[in-house]
């Protein structure tokens, strides 16, 4: 089963989830979107990541808020949310500056979906977390430092 699936994936030439779902009749082809953005997830710096997202030159904005604690008890699970009161937000990307690959996750928001997402990420060390938001075809961003602490007995 797994092998077959892998073969199917290969044969599909990277149809991605939405291609597969469309093929399975789970969603209509119009809903199928771009495949996984490898170049953005493989990027090693903030600049490279922004470039791969098409967001080079994103302006700092106070219209986005990162909801997260200032200090994380453990770097393996750090809760981070991005919220904006702006109308018409199309996409949100979450970057962690000091991770080996900064891009952690990206979200495409169809019309009617609120600009409010929350997830949990791994952070290797204390770092700025950056939220990049696409609204009205333009990119804006904000950042927040999250301190990662050592904890427990230490071993």
């Amino acid at each position, binding site marked *: 089963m797994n092998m077959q699936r892998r073969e199917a994936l290969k044969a599909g030439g990277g149809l991605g989830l939405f291609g597969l779902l469309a093929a399975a009749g789970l969603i209509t082809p119009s809903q199928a979107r771009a495949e996984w953005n490898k170049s953005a997830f493989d990027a090693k710096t903030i600049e490279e990541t922004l470039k791969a997202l098409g967001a080079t030159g994103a302006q700092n904005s106070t219209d986005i808020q990162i909801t997260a604690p200032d200090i994380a008890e453990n770097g393996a699970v750090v809760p981070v949310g991005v919220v904006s009161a702006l109308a018409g937000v199309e996409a949100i990307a979450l970057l962690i500056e000091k991770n080996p690959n900064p891009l952690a996750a990206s979200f495409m928001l169809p019309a009617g979906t609120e600009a409010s997402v929350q997830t949990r990420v791994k952070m290797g060390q204390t770092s700025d977390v950056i939220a990049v938001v696409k609204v009205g075809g333009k990119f804006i961003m904000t950042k927040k430092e999250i301190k990662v602490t050592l904890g427990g007995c*230490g071993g």
Partner: protein
Amino acid sequence: MNYRLIALALITFAPFPSLAQSKPAGDIAAQAEQIFRSSFREDNPSYWMKRLDQDDTMRLCSQYKDNPPPRIRQKIEKAEMASVRYPVDGKLIGDWKEGEKLAAVGTGGHIGFIQPDPPGRVRGGNCYACHQLAKKEVAYGTIGPSLQHFGKLRGNSEQIIKYTYDKIYNSNAFTACTNMPRFGLHNWLTPEQITHIVAFLVDPESPVNKD
């Protein structure tokens, strides 16, 4: 089997024979020790199992639930003070930067089959687990007192330096049955490593005192 254990218990209590009688629920203690000892795998290397052996201080602290009566307290402190050894060059203050590293390291010395430390893993003092030290480290414990500005408040006289060294080497020489490990006695830290932590605590340039 049981007789043998009781006999063993009597022998091990020999240094303080009067205590064996005053021991609360002595019978359950012998049973409990047997149950405890039989809870480990047969194929544990003997040098692992040795870590379950108790010296007189450990045994007394356990028996009195960390609060020995004054007479026992004094005995323990006197005996432990006699154990302190110093670096060959006699210098009790080392490099605070090395001490700062050791204070933050909580790994080393873990044994067992589940998650042992890899060979050669550095053993630290893990000071921050229990003490506040440099201002910049917010993740500190409170089992022990805050040591922030240790040197700033106490100075760095020879007396203070010796006290600090001795206390890290053998905490029980000052407070019997304290929660603090006897780092020097157990060779957990070398005398040289202890001098580095002393420096971290008393050196005016150390972040413990400077910030």
